[in-house]
């Protein structure tokens, strides 16, 4: 008994069905969907490590506390960067972004805190289509920090800045007593210019768009986890993937490709970015498990610890949402660049069920990929 007016395969079909079927399970599923759309609120009395993991708790902290108190039209967009109008100027805007780097250990295979700081800041500007102009860097130094260590970090920042062609133009330093900072914290601000109106923006995402990922997932998070030495794992080939992506983004945008949106996948992993996109744009994102690029060592670490690579942090990868007609060209451009040799098409955008990310497993099944709750905690069970 199907309603012939309703398009088969559409989310509307589900809704029509549930009106007809007295199915308690379906009602529960709908209730969950509704509740998920509601604005989150801060319930905790104290900040926990979950709030820093990049998943739901972080998201709630930002939207329900900071976003709520500081609300204004620019902030409310919660973009990777804020775009400010310059008085008297219509064609370009000023892009501003800020970030803090608190990684431990300071040095790890493939990079260090300094490199992360420079590359991460550039990436937040680049994914918005902005050309980075300069970076500021503020340092909080713990009493007792080895000067040689500090020198090493700053030299690394110099090299990263030179490689990217962006200068560190101003900064600040503070020293706090022993124990009040984990050796060294860095906060950066990146400033750039972006043509207006912005080519890449959440409202440009439409069903039918193709989702691309610029390379293999989980390298950074796994590397840092092992570098901490908490778990007796060795992986000689595992390295952080930290790198500046503004060359890649410029190539994509410069080639006339209809890029609708880009975001770099940092803490919380690719799954978190896709969920943010699905929720902000009110669309569904369907990804194909077989297409997800993952290095063997990351797969090994993930398997041993019981974590999903979709949730492990990256520092040199971006997700791009591109118009369907330009998807293969976009893939070509990505793969032709050093930042994107392992790029892949990983999925597509659909209309419904909105706000949801789901994955087609190699197994022929489909399941939901939810946002990370707290830290991706390894499991024994």
């Amino acid at each position, binding site marked *: 008994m199907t309603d012939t007016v309703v398009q*088969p*395969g559409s989310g509307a079909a589900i809704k029509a069905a549930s009106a007809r079927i007295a199915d308690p399970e379906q009602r529960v599923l709908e209730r969950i969907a509704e509740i998920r759309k509601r604005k989150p609120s801060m319930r905790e009395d104290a900040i926990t490590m979950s709030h820093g993991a990049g998943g739901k708790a972080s998201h709630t902290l930002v939207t329900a506390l900071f976003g709520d108190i500081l609300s204004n039209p620019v902030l409310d967009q919660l973009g990777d960067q804020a775009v400010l109008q310059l008085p008297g100027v219509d064609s370009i805007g000023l892009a501003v972004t800020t970030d803090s780097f608190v990684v431990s250990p300071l040095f790890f295979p493939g990079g260090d805190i300094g490199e992360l700081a420079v590359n991460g800041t550039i990436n937040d500007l680049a994914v918005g289509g902005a050309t980075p102009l300069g970076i500021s860097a503020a340092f909080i130094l713990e009493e007792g920090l080895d000067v040689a260590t500090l020198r090493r970090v700053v030299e690394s920042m110099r090299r990263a800045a030179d490689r990217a062609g962006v200068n560190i133009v101003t900064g600040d330093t503070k020293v706090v007593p022993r124990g009040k900072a984990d050796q060294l914290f860095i906060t950066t601000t990146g400033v750039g210019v972006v043509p207006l109106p912005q080519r890449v923006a959440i409202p440009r995402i439409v069903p039918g768009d*193709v989702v691309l990922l610029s390379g*293999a997932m989980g390298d950074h998070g796994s590397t840092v986890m092992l570098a901490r030495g908490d*778990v*007796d*794992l*060795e*992986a*000689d*080939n*595992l390295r952080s993937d930290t790198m500046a992506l503004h060359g890649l983004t410029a190539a994509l945008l410069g080639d006339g490709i209809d890029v609708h949106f880009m975001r770099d996948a940092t803490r919380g992993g690719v799954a978190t970015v896709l969920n943010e996109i699905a929720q902000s744009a009110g669309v569904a994102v*369907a990804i*194909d498990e*077989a*297409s*997800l*690029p*993952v*290095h*063997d*060592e990351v*797969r*090994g*670490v993930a*398997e*041993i610890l*019981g974590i999903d690579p979709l949730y492990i942090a990256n520092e040199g990868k971006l997700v791009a949402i591109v118009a*369907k007609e330009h*998807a*293969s060209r976009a*893939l070509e451009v990505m793969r032709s660049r050093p930042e994107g040799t*392992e790029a*892949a*098409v*990983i*999925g*597509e955008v*659909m209309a419904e069920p909105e706000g949801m990310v789901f994955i*087609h497993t190699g197994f*022929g099944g*489909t399941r939901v990929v939810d946002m990370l709750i707290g830290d991706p905690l390894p*499991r*024994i*069970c």
Partner: protein
Amino acid sequence: MCLAIPARLVEYVDADRLYGKVELGGVQRRINTSLLVGEDATEPGEYVLVHVGFALSRVSETEAAETLRILEEMGPAYHDEVDQIRQWQAMEDELVGANYRESNGKATV
């Protein structure tokens, strides 16, 4: 019951064979191997089941092959059903949308 995974025993690290190194996908881990005795005695190069840093048993290649053989035997007799399933899969793909495999080529590393 829980998360135990088969990993290759690379080597023992002490003479009494109480500790060893296993490898999975290029990642190595130091584990306790003191339970690998009797039927579970394992030589380097063979596989063991690892759980919370301990090897619980040896993975028998012969038994694994036998289990797979039984599973594979169930396949050919049901070609018709498998074809129907494949048709369903195609219908489902159509409902869902694009087939990513064709636009990707070799995507995984």
